[in-house]
């Protein structure tokens, strides 16, 4: 059962989330629990504590449907009346221009370094 496998694997991935939350509390780590969990799962895979096939199907589903999980927060935009003002319009334009510059320059820099073949090992 494909859906069953996905659900079980997502539950398994939750173990890393709970472990991360515990570690964050215990050592007051200034990172979000999800990023700590990512590092934990990565280490578990590298150290062969967890096999790739235990998590891969669930993880692929989560990554493919990521946008779904952003939607409730996006709906929350209506709570900000300020966005529907001239300031709000300006800031959206600023974000658009800035994102465009970041995207194209990052691509150009990466492309340029890759073509030059600079590899500092």
């Amino acid at each position, binding site marked *: 059962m494909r859906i069953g496998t996905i659900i079980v694997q997502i539950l398994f991935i939750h173990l890393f989330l709970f472990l991360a939350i515990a570690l964050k509390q215990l050592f007051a780590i200034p990172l979000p629990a999800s990023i700590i969990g990512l590092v934990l799962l990565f280490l578990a895979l590298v150290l062969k504590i967890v096999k790739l096939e235990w998590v891969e199907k669930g993880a692929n589903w989560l990554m493919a449907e990521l946008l779904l999980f952003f939607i409730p927060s996006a709906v929350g935009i209506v709570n900000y009346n300020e966005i529907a003002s001239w300031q709000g319009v300006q800031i959206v334009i600023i974000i658009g221009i*800035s994102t465009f510059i970041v995207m194209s320059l990052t691509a150009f820099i990466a492309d340029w370094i890759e073509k030059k073949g600079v590899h500092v090992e």
Partner: protein
Amino acid sequence: MTILLATVMTYLFYRLTKQLNKKITFPLFHPLLLTPILIILVITLFNIPAAKYMDGAAFLTHMLGPATIAFAIPIYKHLALLKKHLSLIMISITAGSLIAIFTSYGLSMLLHIDRNFLISVLPRSITTPIAMEISKDIGGLPTLTTVFVIITGIVGGVMGPAVIKRFAITSPIAQGLALGMSAHGVGTNKAMDYGEQATTFSTLAMILAATITIVLGKFLIPTLVAFI
């Protein structure tokens, strides 16, 4: 609004817009733009406050945690690639993070954006949870930052394929780094259309950008904020 109703409604609208987006590739049909608009229409029609809907759909928001953790898999699978291109990634993403902060700051200063908005927009190019933490640290409003992060994601997701096509970015490394740097998780989701290698580099870009911005949030950003 009940959890089941909010979750099912969100899922159905999401599926619908995703399907529509596949058939008609029109940028404004992006699921992260069209789905919220449809939901806002429905809850307005039935007089449901947005906060009630968001409480109901909290389960979906919760799934962002495991979804972020899931990105450990592409990194693990392409570890050799990461090691090989470590300096390329470091340089591109350090530059990208600085460009994100300076262009947001410069343009906002130029247009005399209100102080709260200006500070809250500075960490907009990174993943939501970390952006909120940094926003709190530098004296911004974390919830407002979340809004700017989402707008960044929508804009980046919509513009990504056009930029990649227009500037003929053919290397999956450059594609991935650019998408993850400029549009965090939403960009990384888009990177999946360009293959597993692009997804990996996008994930790495997203994580590294967040880490670098944490450091900049302690040193560079407070200095910038002092000039407002």
